[in-house]
Structures are given as C-alpha cells and as structure tokens.
C-alpha cells in the first residue's frame, strides 16, 4: 500500500454485483450531487434474459494514463501520487472533450445557471476531494466529501452490500479478486 508504485484502483466483480444501486445512491448522497447526476452508475446488460443478465457498477476508473487529461484544452486534470485522477473545477470550461476521450463515460456535466447551460465537468473523485484546501467548505461544495483524507474508504465501496465493488491499491485489489476467482468452482 505504501510502496512508491501504489496506485488506487476500483474494480467491480460482476459476479457479485446485484444492481442494488447502493454505491450510486450513497455517492450522490455523500457528495450532495444534483438529482440525475451519478458519479457512479449501475448498469445491467440483458435485463431479465435468463442466463445472460449481468450488472456492473461503473465510475471513473482513475486510469494510469488518463486520456481525459491528455485532451483537456485547459489542463485542468492532475494525478495524485496515489494515482487518483482529479480535476480543478475552477479551470474547467465544460467543453466535454474529456467525455469524448474517456472509455468509461465517467465525466458528466451538471447543468448550471439560468439558461440551464452545461456547466463544468463533474466526476468521481474516489472521495478524495479536489485541489482546494483539504476538508475545507469550498472543497466540500465543489467536489463533495474528502473521505480519503479522513482515512476512510470511498463511500461506494464502503456501502457495497455484496463486496462486489473493491477499491484500494491495485495489487491488493487484484489479489482479492484473484483469490475469489481461483477458489470459485473449487470448493476448498
């Protein structure tokens, strides 16, 4: 966890995800998001089709080489030492390019102002706030809670009913997942 190469990652085990929306709702509640904006979404494929239905929870994956940061015309993205990809809402101009570049559809744009124009981008912060002073009122207003600074797990993973959603250092997460899948079907 403390190694220099440690990178924080999310991982959703679709064999565990039951589409309960706890992650999505807890996230919206924790960060006081506008209704309809979900930093984390739960999507079900082949809903109701026997043997095919799969659900998965998706948000910003905090990529190692994030395309959003590459295409941003105002360079509002920055990557923390632990790999969490954050952005500065004071720099963002709401152009939408990050959404086009993102493979996961993570960036979204709450409407803003009197004409309902598209505002600045909002996305999952892995509960790590933003560039403002940690745990300041301003950080809270723009980015929601900074649970990481308080030593807490991101709220989505904390509330996951079935432990489908894993978060933490990439190696730890993959170790947990590997253990799960390797014992699956063995009956050890």
């Amino acid at each position, binding site marked *: 966890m403390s190694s220099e190469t440690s990178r924080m990652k999310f991982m959703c085990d679709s*064999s*565990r995800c*039951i*589409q*309960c*929306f*706890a992650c999505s*709702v807890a996230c*919206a*509640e924790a960060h006081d998001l506008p*209704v*309809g904006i979900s930093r984390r979404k739960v999507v079900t494929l*082949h*809903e*109701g*089709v*026997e*043997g095919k*239905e*799969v*659900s998965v929870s998706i948000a910003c994956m905090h990529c190692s080489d994030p395309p959003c940061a590459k295409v941003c015309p105002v360079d509002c993205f920055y990557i923390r030492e632990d790999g969490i990809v954050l952005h500065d809402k004071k720099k963002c101009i709401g152009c939408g390019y990050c959404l086009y570049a993102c493979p996961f559809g993570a960036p979204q744009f709450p409407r803003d102002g009197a004409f309902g124009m598209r505002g600045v981008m909002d996305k999952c912060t892995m509960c790590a706030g933003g560039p403002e002073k940690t745990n300041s009122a301003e950080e809270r207003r723009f980015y929601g809670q900074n649970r990481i600074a308080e030593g807490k797990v991101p709220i989505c993973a904390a509330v996951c*009913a*079935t*432990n489908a959603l894993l978060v933490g250092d990439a190696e730890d997460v993959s170790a947990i997942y590997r253990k*799960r899948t390797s*014992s*699956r*079907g*063995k*009956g*050890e």
Partner: protein
Amino acid sequence: MTNHFGDVVGHSKAILIIGANPAVANPIGMKHFLQAKDRNNTQLIVVDPIYTKTAAKADYYLRIRTGTDVAFIYGLLHLIFKNGWEDKEFIKKRVYGMDKVKEEAAKWTPEVVSDVTGIPTDQIVQTATLLAETKPATVVWALGITQHSTGTSNTRILPIMQLALGNMGKKGGGCNIIRGHDNVQGATDMCCLADSLPGYYGLSEGSWKYFAKSWGVDFDWLQSRFASPEWMNKKGFSLAKWWQGVLQEEQTYSSSPIRALWVQGNGLTSMSQTAKIQEALNKLDLLVIAEPFLNEAAVLTNRKDNLYVLPVATQFETEGSVTATNRSSQWRSKVIDPLYECKTDHDVMFEFAKKFGFYDQYTRAMKMDVKEGELVDVKKDFVWPDDAVSEIARTLKTIGLGGWTPERLRKQQENWYMFDPVTLAGAGPMKGQYYGLPWPSWDKKHPGSPVLYDVDVPVNDGGMGFRNRFGLEHDGVNLLAAPSVTVKGSTIKGGYPEITRENIEEVLGSKLTDAEKQKIGSNWKTDISGIIQEKCRAAGVAPYGNARARTIVWEFPDPVPLHREPIHSSRPDLVSKYPTYPDQKNNFRVDVKFISEQQAREWVKEFPTMLVTMRVVNLSGAGMLERSSKYLSHLTPEMFANIHPDLAFKYGIRDGDMMWLHSPQGTKIKVKAQHNQSVTPDRICLPYNFAGVMQGVDLSPNYPEGTKPYTTGESSNTITNYGFDVITQIPEYNAGLCRIEKA
C-alpha cells in the same frame, strides 16, 4: 432462521432459494450466498415465477407457476423417497409422521409436478438429485412462500423436506427464512399479533396469568379491561382483514364494529385489498397515525375530521435492542435526540397509558426483578430501555431470552469486532459467546445458539434437540427423540419431555428442597423463579425437552400439507383436482371465503394473466420513507409493471405506454408498461411499494403540506386478489389474476 448467514458461507454446499429475492429485498443477506458460491462452490438454486436479480446469480433457475410450491416440493420428495435418498436414520430417530408425507409424495411424479408447476421434468429431477447428493444444503425463503392462501402449508413442506434429507440441526443446513426489514424478527418474537401474547405464549388463561404475574399486575384487573372475560382468550382482528371489522360485509364475530384505528409503524397501504381499506378508513370514527414519515393511510382516506397524525421519532433517535433475522440481538445506540416535536414510540405509548390511567401498571414490571426466586419490587423508577430489556429477558422463556440482559448486549456492541463473521464465535473477552446471543440463550451464562436443533453440541454451548411441544405421544407413537439421540454432554440419555414442576425430579433425577418446591413455577415456560433453568443447566438439558419434529399437524385442516390451487387459479382444469379449502368460519373474528370464491366463476376466462408482486430494491414496504428521498425515488420515478413484449404487443402496448389492470374484485389500477424479459407472457409483475394514486385518482391534494413524496403511484395492492391463509390469514399477494387493457 434455524442457522445464520455466516453458517451458510462456512458450510452450505447447496442453497435452495424459493419465494425469496434477497438480491433486492436483503442485499446484505445476498452477499453471504454469493460468498458461499465463491468460497465453497456452493450450488445456488433459485425457484421463482420471475427471473429475479437473485435468479441472475443462480447456478440453476426454475420458473414456477405461482402458488404451486407445495406441489414442487412434493415432486422433490417423490424422487427422494423413490430413490431412497432420504436420511433414514434421522427420520427414524428424530421425526414423527414422515410415512404420511411419503404417501402423499408418491402421487407427485415428475410429470404431474411439471404439469402443475410448469417446471420441466428434467429440472425437477436435476434439482432433486443435486439436493440428495449435496449436503449439507439449506433452504431459504421469504414472503413468496408465506403470502399465499396456502402459506402455512408452504412453510411446513420446506422444513419437512429438510427433515427428510436430514439437513436439520446441521451446520450448513436448516431452514433460513429471511426477514426483510430491520427487527422484523424482534417484532415477531414480541408477537405484535392478534393471536398471541409476547414470546408465542398464545392467549390461554394460563398464559395471561403468567403475564399478569410477570407484569406485577392483578389478573382480575387485566380481565376487567376486556368487554367480557371471554374476549381475553379470543383472537383479535388480523392486520389482513381488520377492515371487515369496520365494514362488516362478511360475517364478523365481535362485541362491536371497529370504530377507532391507531396505526403506528405499519405501512397500511402495503396490505392487500386497498380499496376495502380505503372504505374502512372513511367509515371509522377516529383514525390516528403515528409515524416518522406520513403514513399514506392518511392520504388514502378522504376523511376531513377525526384524523390525527402524530410525529414519531426514528430508530436513530432512540435506543434499545433489535433482533436480526438469525434470532440474534444487537444493541443500538441513540444517535441524536428526537427532532422537533416528535416523540419516541415508547413515549407516545407512555403518554397514551397515562391518559387512559394505566401508566403505573404499564411500567411496573420495569421496576421489578427476581430476588431469591421471587419477583419483587426493587426500585422506585425505571431506566429506559435497559429495564424494559431486562423485563423481556426474564419473562420470555419460551424462546429462551434469559441471556439477553442489557449488560451483555451492550458489551457485545462495544466489542463487535471480536466476533468471527462465519462462526459468530467471540474471542478474547468475548470468548464463550456467540454474536447477538442467538436465541435460545437460556440464561445469563448461555452463549446463544447459532444453529438450532444440533444435538452434537452441548445445551450449555448452544445445542439442543427438537422441542417437546405436542405431547408425549400421538396415535400411540412416542413423540420423544429415540433413545440413541442424546444431546452431547447431557446427563439424560435419549429423548426427554419438557421440564415441569411435576416431572422435574423424575426426569432430572434430582431432589428439590422444600423452599424450591414452594417457589418453582408450574413448568419451564412460567417458572419465574429460574429454578428449572438452573437444574437443567446443571444436567446439560434443554428445558423444552428433546423430542421428535412432527410432520403431521393434527389440528390443521391439512394434517399433511397438500397442494391446493390458488383461489384465482390460472388452471381451472386443476381446480377440481386440487380445490382450495372449504369456506372458513370465524378466523380472527371474521368469515373467510375459499371454495366459494374459487368456484364463483371461471376467473381465468375474464382475467387471463397471472399477477405477481415484487419489491424493488430502492423502496421498502409501502415505500413512503424511500419515496421521500430524492435519490432513491429517482431510480423508479413512477409506478410500473414488468410485462413481456409478446404479451404487451397482444394488447398493442408499447414500452412505456400506460395500461389499466383489472382485478376479479372489480378494482383497477393504471400503470406504465415496462417491457421486460424477466416475466413470461402468461404473467406480469408489479412492485408493491407505491401509493398516492387510487384507481386512477391522484390523491396528491390529500397530502398535508410538505409531506408529499417525490414519487407517488398506484398501489399494486389495489388489485391483489381476494384470498387469505387458512391459519395465519396472511393475504394472498403472490398468486392472482388480472386483465390488461391499453389505457
């Protein structure tokens, strides 16, 4: 639950989930089934009329026709007996009446079962084989099993199968019934019911006398509170049919119509026959509603007067113990003081008692305790909730709550991290206790019983045999466990009866002193002195006996469970073969129609589509609480019905179109059609969590200012069909018919 979630994770090799959708109704419970799959390659079998979120995680999914669970289980039993897969030793030593079950099962060949249930024969054979070969296996169910006109038979046939397979009293086996809401098990244990005193004591005079003594009040005084003494021992109206007490359309048996209704902590709009409930609410003289969120019963009625809404505190504003689905208790602390002018539930009840002049009697037992074998006053004032919990612990002996003292529960709460989630066993200072002290926790030293009926564990460590509940013999057969079934560590070999004042010396082989003889109660259930419990502990004996489980309930209309077609059956050809019960006289003070309703018409001709109800994950109960949350209500912005595209297009209904659903009772609701493959074209499925619209009429104007939730909608219960269980009178929510019409 006979076992617990951790036990399923640790030991179950197969899980049969029938009539339950934990992925939606109990996601935390669902985690354990998924963990079992991951850790032990546990096979998950899901039986449901709908391809649910739980089914989506199953290894085997069986689509059953609604209301045919008994037939399905007989199909499994048929194959189990035919192939000799039953646990013969277990049945011989610990079960009574299995031969009668075997006789009935002989009729249910896979072909017959397939015809009745709609499940293909190969899936029936596959499931039976799997359950026979994979042990231990556990059975999980919930309201999909209980909420039927045959609910009692359903809940009996499943444990019977577990007995036949020898899965009872085993780690990883048992019957694990999931309670959907917080503290439902606790409410059940307290018997918030019309037919029993707390702790399943029933309404007999002996029970009343025991409670009078335990509450420190005079029995005659208690009796004088009733209109006449006979009512004391008669069941009240049930939640399912209380409205008949008001409307009196069917024959009722009561000293007076119901004139006032006090609703506290109950989603009245989530009960069936909402249209009747509406009529009854309008006709009452007085309606009081006491809830944290507005109960939509207040909106359902159009009454302008004599309707009072009292604000009651939430769970976060009060303190006490709650009981989890696996019979374990947890202490819960108060987070904040009650907000604004609301009061906690108990304060509301205390105020009520004061106004009616019985506050002293009401609270007296909290100031008492057992000293030297006798219940005496010990203090001037009581401490809430500790003294209430102590009162419960010392009074409710039937289910062994003796160990649930507030001190122990608080200590467990503080040290919860010292318990193992799979075994529930504590470590360090908590060593020798199971988490939550799952009942029976006979006395203050008992660790709790994580797995019921396990004779391989000493009684004082949580083991026991089956309860000696139904006498010593029936039809000349000894109902006690066979001589070879000795509970580990017990001084008594083989089965033994429940312990009473009369038999204690003989059964335990010890002499009572004269002082003890004076103080001892008549039996273990009413022994306030605790002497019986003390002697039993010394002998390693469960005070309730060590007997056989019975598969025949000779007092019931069906001594052995029988398949009976739903009252509104989709298969009229099967109705004559498997008719429902005769009409019932006076159950819970009201007559109930069975056969007359079933045969009134060939319902399926006019109402060709099966009606199934379901829960949605973001809403619970009547849904008022969750629909008041902007984020939760956003997930299901309006009431809908899942309908197969093939069925929908038959009526020209596109995805998102509105449609009317008509019920045999003449009621109708207007809901949005949501095309969905989880239902087959012969059935539709509705969530039951909406209210605020009634048969097309928007009730928005009835909401007091600021109380209207973000979403309202038709209640599915407006069209759930008439039908009630023959014993418990639980409504038939899950097997009915309807007619679809494009709106």
